[in-house]
């Protein structure tokens, strides 16, 4: 019985600095939903995304992103970055009780004739500060076939990370 949100695969790790999900993007779907169901950092850190093609990680400076950080304790802040090597999706403080909530959509990753677009939203808490949400968009500006994704930290490692990938049935 298929419905509109179809589980593809999940991955998890403990005390790792990266988590790869290989071959999760195929010609079966155009739109993918990624849910980060558990995420604890070992240090104050940002959560980044890199894509993978059939040759491995896409490490070229072909990623652009823009985001709005929504803070309960201060004026909101924007960031815009072009021609970098990753997409920024969230920031969180390290204590494990804080964790984070995060989900995003990936559009057209497997289509070799289009860029890979993404948008997402996260909710976190910074000790000593307060609620810290992020709403972001991003693009990888190469018309290429993306087959997988890597999650990585800017600092330290993931104490725990669990991610599920779903296809959005059309």
């Amino acid at each position, binding site marked *: 019985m298929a*419905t509109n949100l179809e589980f593809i695969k999940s991955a*998890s790790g403990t005390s790792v600095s990266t988590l790869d999900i290989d071959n999760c993007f195929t010609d079966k779907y155009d739109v993918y939903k990624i849910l980060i169901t558990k995420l604890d950092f070992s240090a104050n850190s940002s959560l980044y995304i890199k894509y993978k093609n059939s040759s491995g990680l896409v490490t070229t400076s072909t990623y652009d992103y823009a985001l709005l950080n929504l803070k309960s304790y201060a004026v*909101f802040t924007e960031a815009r970055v072009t021609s970098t090597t990753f997409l920024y999706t969230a920031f969180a403080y390290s204590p494990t*009780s804080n964790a984070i909530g995060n989900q995003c959509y990936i559009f057209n990753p497997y289509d070799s004739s289009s860029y890979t677009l993404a948008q997402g939203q996260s*909710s976190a808490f910074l000790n000593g500060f307060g609620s810290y*949400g992020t709403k972001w968009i991003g693009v990888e500006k190469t018309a290429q076939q993306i087959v997988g994704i890597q999650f990585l930290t800017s600092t330290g490692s993931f104490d725990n990370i669990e991610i599920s990938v779903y296809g959005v049935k059309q």
Partner: protein
Amino acid sequence: MSEFGYIPEAPEQSFGNNKGIFTPKDIYDLTRADKYTNYGQLELIETKTVSNAVVDFTNLGNYNVHFVTFNDIVLSTDNELLGHRLSNNGGSSFISTGYQFAIQYGGTGGDFGESKNTNYSSLSTLAVTGNATNETKNGYVYYYNLLDSSKYSFCTLQTFSQYTGGAEGLFGSGVKTTAETHNAIRFLTTGGNALTSGSISLYGIKEYS
């Protein structure tokens, strides 16, 4: 005979890799064991139509991530906001303090801005004011870690409302900074008056280990 009743010995069963002919009991047993390929991981827990001043969900199932949609919610009183609170005692009472949120809003009337609070009575605001005809509230919320006693509870949301000033959308996030189990959700107005009509659906996001 295998664990799931095959004669002779059956192949190993797993999500995405089922083999054989299944009886209803096989499917039931495999599903309970998370070994039956049954797509549809957005699992409806309950839909409630507004019939009281508040809407409570006291059965959250067993999920790390919950998803809520609310449709055509109408409030009884103008100048109030739609909000949501959590419970740590199964819905006997709902926590009314200590939430933090940050929201970005934007409306066709030209009002764009920030809304934030570090000690609020609701996990976040969910929709703007208005109770006139057609001034309904619609949107969705993701909840994270509600049932994890070692984590704070988080939400992200995006909503859309009609009000006197026009149409207004908002998105943002909220957190309850207490590491404890939150096992019920209440939807209410932040001013203490009633919801009048509409419906709210609660889903769990199925995971596989």
